[in-house]
């Protein structure tokens, strides 16, 4: 049991990485929502918009948990020195890189439209593997080679934790609202 437990990072480190992920996901989702908000205000009342916000927050929380779950899984799979030992900084850096890559992927997603189903599966799998591998290598090298950079990322991750305490409960409230609306 302890052997398995030791393969995972400590809870404070997980929380700090989750803070970074939550910050990226929630900021993106809420920011994009503000982009849509003016058009919604043409015909929706505040009471109509609150449930939409609830779904958005709940989904951002869901996505955040999946990303941290994936990073924890990687940490479990890899030898400790590649991720677990510097999970706070490496994990945060990888989360930032995942977010940035995803935004870029959205921009160029239309490239995939003419592809056959087989090509989509193969190329997507290759792309995701490459992104994960590169993120891992870049984060490993930059954190291990540049102590100042590691300090900078650690500071950043710690400052992000405040957002976790804001966005996290909002996500949970959103989830509750979504669940209640779909039960009753």
């Amino acid at each position, binding site marked *: 049991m302890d052997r398995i437990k030791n393969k995972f990072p400590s809870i404070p480190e997980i929380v700090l990485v989750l803070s970074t992920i939550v910050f990226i996901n929630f900021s993106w*989702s809420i920011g994009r929502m503000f982009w849509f908000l003016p058009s919604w205000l043409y015909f929706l009342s505040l009471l109509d918009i609150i*449930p939409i916000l609830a779904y958005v927050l709940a989904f951002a929380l869901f996505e955040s948990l999946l990303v941290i779950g994936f990073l924890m899984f990687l940490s479990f799979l890899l030898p400790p020195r590649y991720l677990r030992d510097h999970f706070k900084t490496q994990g945060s850096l990888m989360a930032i890189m995942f977010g940035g890559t995803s935004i870029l*992927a959205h921009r160029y997603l239309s490239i995939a439209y003419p592809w056959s189903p087989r090509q989509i599966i193969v190329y997507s799998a290759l792309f995701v593997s490459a992104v994960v591998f590169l993120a891992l290598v870049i984060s490993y090298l930059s954190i291990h080679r540049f102590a100042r950079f590691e300090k900078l990322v650690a500071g950043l991750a710690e400052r992000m934790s405040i957002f976790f305490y804001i966005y996290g409960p909002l996500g949970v409230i959103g989830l509750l609202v979504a669940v209640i609306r779909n039960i009753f």
Partner: protein
Amino acid sequence: MKRSLSRRDFLKLASILAMSPLADKTYRVLSRAQATSQASQSPNIIVILLDTLSAVQLSLYGYPRDTSPNLVRFAERATVFHSHHAAANFTTPSTASFLTGVHPWTHRAFHFSGLVRKDLQARNIFNLIGDGYQRTGFAHNLLANALLFQFNEYIDQHIKLGSYSLLDKTIYDNYFPKDALSAYRSFDQYLFWGDYPGSLYFSLAYTLGNVSDYNAAEAKYESAYPRGIPGAGNPQLAFIHKHLFDGVMNLLETRRPPFFTYIHLYPPHEPYLPRKEFMGIFRDDWKPVVKKPHYFSKGETDKHLDILRTRYNEYIANADFEMGRLLDHIAKIGLLDTSYVIVTSDHGQLFERGVHGHNTPLLYEPILRIPLIISQPGQQERIDIHANTSTVDLMPTILSIAGQSVPEWCEGEVLPGLGGEASAQRSIYSVEAKSNYAYQPLSMATFSLIKESYKLIQYRGYKGYEDVSELYDLKNDPDELDDLSKTNPSLVKELRAELDAKIKEADQPALQQP
């Protein structure tokens, strides 16, 4: 005064109390049986609405290309309305007007995926026709389906949007039926939609999954659909016509009489992706009247508009073929003898003045004039009605057919030929008002008012085209080429005054947000 109950009185009271739930139940069963008995004498009502079908481009109404031979055949035993007009230029407001019997400025659903004012939402056809009818709604269009969800509690069977599609991947309809409208806006219109959706990671997987499934379906049906398979506005709703219309046939077969079934079908809405047999069937020398680009022109050249029009015509012919199959099936299963079959559209499509489509401030006839063909039970002769009629007339007509009274607040009239009277003085209104707040007076909008043979088009609040009126004589100038507003200012003034009064009246309740 006797203060306590005797044993005998107690037993009497107890028996009465014990009977009361039973009595209540018996009363309900009897009432229901009475309603059912009345309803069993009522005719079925089938509404088939083809999205974006302009009457101007149907051979049924004199278009030179033979786009609608099956509708012509159906019309031989039906009532054909020649001057039927949509209440608005796109699905949401026009469908809402159909289902509520009031104009867009009253129900205020004039935005993409807008909804009827909450304080008016109980005033819909499904509710008013009563539960003596089995009420079914199927909208193969996201915007119309949102309206059906708004009226969901009054619909006995709301058929899912993608039920008869090859792909059925909308999120709100499949996973959140209890909170569909919020989920629709959250997931299908925001989190998983657009170039930069609200979801950072899952939207990528969702989009790629949809693209993959769509491409697989396209490859499978490539020989039948060389231009690609249609998608009901979204690739995740890709469909082929045969499945869609076969699904509707099965749906009608399983209705319990008397029933009211509202079917809103996506074809011939763009993109124009007909089956192979209909491609190139209109390679002819026919050219429509050329019209000068409008102020609101989107820069489409006449040559390109001709290509698009021809493709639209091919697609109409494809939809008409399927309609022929559907109507034949309705006849085969005996529903033509017991049902009112209403075939109509929500709005038309424009291919002129530098504009293609219906998302435009322009309200010319190709966008507003829509088909309306109604077959009455057992009708054998064709009847032609030339009076001006509107989308808002369908709800009162359906209520009248169903033996229900038409509410006072209804802004439509029972159609002539179906219990109503034709009135030359009748005013027919249409509106385009997307750029307005739903709960504020209309400030930037286009209005159309048709009275007798004259049509006033009024543009309000558009920068650079503010307060402009156009007047046409539809009888002598059906192509709306000769603007009479300069030569007949008194008529413009008269119609304008009527329109102003109507809008002022309609804007009053809009000031109070529900």
